[in-house]
């Protein structure tokens, strides 16, 4: 699909879809829903105490 081509991971896809659903709620429910934390995760690889790579799980491109 187009989001995969743009480098968006499935994890991020679910987060964007969930955020959109939260914002579509009636205003009173929206406030409570938007307080819920949507996590962003990164993986860092260390070698001899130094960071050698960081991968953002929101993206399938490694930085």
């Amino acid at each position, binding site marked *: 699909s187009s*989001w995969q*081509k743009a480098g*968006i991971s499935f994890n991020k896809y*679910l987060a964007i879809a*969930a955020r959109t*659903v939260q914002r579509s709620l009636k205003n009173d429910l929206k406030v409570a829903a938007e307080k819920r934390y949507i996590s962003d995760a990164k993986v860092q690889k260390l070698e001899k105490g130094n960071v050698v790579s960081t991968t953002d799980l929101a993206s399938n491109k490694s930085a």
Partner: protein
Amino acid sequence: AEAVNPDVLKVSLVAPHQAIFTNKEVSQVNLPASSGEMGVLANHVPTVEELAPGVVEVIESSGTASKYFVSGGFASILPGSKLSISTVEAHPLDAFSSENIKSLLAEAQKNASSADETVAAEAAIEIEVLEALQAAVH
């Protein structure tokens, strides 16, 4: 031990923040599988389906149906007539504001033509969700 009746479907609908149903006994559940709409009855073949943003319809044995909009996730159909639906957000249809959906859709459609590939791709996901919501709420 719990008495097991394999001819009754037991459904669980869970989000990280809330369990809407836990092993609720129902007669049928309709799922927005990404491969297409599917109806699940008792004694279904075990399988895992990816869910698209859409409506999960739970039909009780009395015939009463309740509808929940889910943001996407997975449905696991387990042996012994168990169905487990995992999603991030799930809300009854009357929890949504058609005005909010409309204004978000207008904004997403504007961003869909952005030159920034990531912005455009995010907007395309939003449009997918919002169009499904609009169809469900009306």
